[in-house]
């Protein structure tokens, strides 16, 4: 089971066990993290599951799609090169140890 660390805007770190095949967003919601809202439930429609992939992991998570790029324009916080919608990062055994940072706000 991949382990996943979320770093909230205030620096709070939470490490969660994830299931392979689940998304980063689903892991955060199941773990009760407030920093991910995910209003649309993973249809890439709402931009409220915005996260910043840690620089050390950006090669392994892959890059965002064009549609993801479009939706990130609606994110309330700054979009950086490492920005992703966490519903679009699906966990694989290779992502064990992944670190993502959460923005200050989602809505």
């Amino acid at each position, binding site marked *: 089971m991949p382990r996943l660390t979320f770093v909230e805007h205030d620096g709070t770190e939470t490490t969660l066990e994830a299931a392979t095949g689940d998304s980063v967003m689903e892991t955060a*919601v199941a773990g009760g993290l407030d920093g991910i809202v*995910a*209003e*649309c*439930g*993973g*249809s*890439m*429609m*709402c*931009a409220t599951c915005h996260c910043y992939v840690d620089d050390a992991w950006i090669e392994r998570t892959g890059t965002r799609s*064009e*549609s993801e790029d*479009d*939706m990130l*324009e*609606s994110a309330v916080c700054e979009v950086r090169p490492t920005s992703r919608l966490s519903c679009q990062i699906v966990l694989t055994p290779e992502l064990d140890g992944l670190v993502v940072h959460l923005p200050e706000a989602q809505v």
Partner: protein
Amino acid sequence: MRDMELIEGHRAITPPEGMPVWDVDPFDTDILRDPEAYYGELRARGPVVYIPRWSVLACGQYETTRTVFSDHENFVSSRGVGLNDFHLGEPWRPPSIILEVDPPEHTRTRRVMSRALSPKVVKTLVAMFAETAERLVEELVAQHRIEAVEDLAERFPISVFPPAVGMRDVDQRILVDYGACVFNAMGPDNALRRAALARNAQIAPWIMAACARERLTEDGIGAMIYADADTGEIAADEASLLVRSLLSAGVDTTVTGIGNALHCFAANPGEWDRLRADPSLVRPAIEEVLRYTSPVHTFGRTAGRDSQIAGFPVVEGTKILCVLGAANLDPGKWGEDAGCFRIDRRPMGHMAFGAGIHGCVGQNIARAEMEAVLTALARKVARIEFDGAAPWRPNNAIHALDKLPLKLIPA
């Protein structure tokens, strides 16, 4: 080879061995009016059930319904999301180029629509929605007794959505009926579908004319879609079909969502008090209304190739009913109080907007409309009371009220 046997324009199948068989008509008007017992029995019979009446499979347990509904590789939309298989017969109308297509075609049109309906675009509409809701609610509170389907649930979306699209032509009856026709057409050849096709023949020309570029303003959602035709991202005739999709999917659905919300709060006055005491609950309350009432109760998929559901083999061409209403009330997902309306539930992952790549592209605007109405009501109305019978209106895919007489007790 023997000719393939067809039923309702799709392949008739032999049920896989061991699969539960249930002799029920999911489109029976009594079930459509009051579906909860049907939802419960569908879930109880198993993750997937064979329904001989229409020779289809049906899922109602949450996990299976969600898996099938979001598995666009095995269970396609391009063969129609109703009972007819578009591979085997002429569709009743030119198919939608976003609802009734698969990737890669879908990816292209979906992108255009999701840009035009993005949270960023919806933010520009929120003030207009709020002002309109304030005015309308004020008027209705003064009236005291209302028929909430026509006076509020229909009137509000008709007051804000066509202007947001940029429509110059507005006709409340036609716009509401059009969506109802499209959704009724997803069912079998029953009286509801036949009436819908007859009504559609009357109003489709009006709808198509209203979708033309010259009938739209230059600053609305419709114009954004046409602008993508200018850049070549889509063709001009595709733009008019996408505007048509706004009208089929964006009016009757939100009308239903608002009507159902009012019904929930009239039936659960304690939850109304809670919302009034803490208006920040409005967003989770909307999600709970959607989960609890499933405005879109059933949508179909077609097995695009041989595959399986819950361990049972499923042959190519099989139609599968995904009963979203049953999944949304599954105690296996939502707990023993799944049948209770509780505005602080925060039902993440409910199926009211579907799931996966075909998840409702208009969900941001739908939420914004419901939020505007509920926020205005919560400020001005102390209690919402039933003022007579509130019958449901049977529809092959939509669970909506026919009439909702209410008394609005001012705050």
